């Protein structure tokens, strides 16, 4: 048995219930294939670093599981066929996992390991546009104003953090690559 991790980029336009269907489908595939799902994470829609199938956004799903090598070839075969999958990457984390010992270990920590699988089914906060659109009419805002604002705030957070981190990370990068512009200048 080996431990694998697959990151899948899905079509960002897929509705939430189809995402849940997708994760359910693959977790049942893993179980019927004699494997065990450790966790499934939904990172939500993220901006891609480059265009994939002419899209600049993608919804990232992480599968962490244990299984035989035949299982992963089947999973990858299905990823390739599926239209919803833009791109995927599977990584082998551990060569030799004893499933019985592993199950016993996860059994003890069940409340913790089980928790990450459930937030997947939680619908992500509504896209920003509808929330913003709902805000301007003041009559409607009195009732619904608070909730969408919170949702937008939570939806924005990861992006904001990411941008800060980028801003931070750029500075050292510039220092480190102080020698770089000269070389590049010479080349071009």
């Amino acid at each position: 048995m080996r431990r694998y991790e697959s990151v899948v980029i899905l079509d960002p336009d897929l509705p939430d219930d189809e995402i849940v269907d997708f994760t359910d489908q693959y977790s049942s595939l893993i179980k019927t294939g004699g494997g065990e799902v450790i966790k499934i994470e939904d990172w939500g829609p993220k901006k891609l670093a480059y265009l994939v199938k002419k899209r600049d956004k993608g919804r990232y799903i992480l599968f962490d599981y244990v299984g035989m090598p035949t299982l992963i070839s089947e999973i990858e075969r299905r990823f390739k066929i599926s239209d919803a999958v833009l791109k995927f990457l599977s990584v082998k984390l551990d060569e030799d996992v004893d499933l019985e010992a592993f199950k016993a270990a996860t059994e003890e920590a069940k409340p913790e390991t089980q928790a990450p699988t459930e937030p997947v089914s939680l619908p992500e906060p509504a896209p920003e546009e509808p929330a913003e659109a709902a805000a301007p009419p003041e009559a409607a805002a009195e009732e619904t104003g608070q909730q969408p604002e919170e949702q937008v705030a939570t939806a924005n957070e990861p992006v904001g953090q990411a941008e800060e981190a980028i801003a931070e990370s750029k500075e050292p990068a510039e220092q480190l690559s102080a020698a770089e512009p000269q070389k590049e200048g010479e080349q071009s």
Partner: protein
Amino acid sequence: MSKPPKKRSFPRSKVCRFCADSSLRMDYKEPNILRIFITERGKIIPRRISGNCAKHQRQLTTAIKRARNIALLPFTVPRR
């Protein structure tokens, strides 16, 4: 014997960031950490400049290449 021409020295960190700070995780799923070690154009910064040790630079390269494959980091950043 004449002295060789003075080499220009660039200020750089000589300690491996990952050895110095064990809390700094290197993972292809953390593009913001990896971004420190690539240039604005998306190239991996060489060891002689970043000061990483060989072991960590090796791990870093695979992590960056994985992150590129899953569109968390760019292969290239086109000029404007």
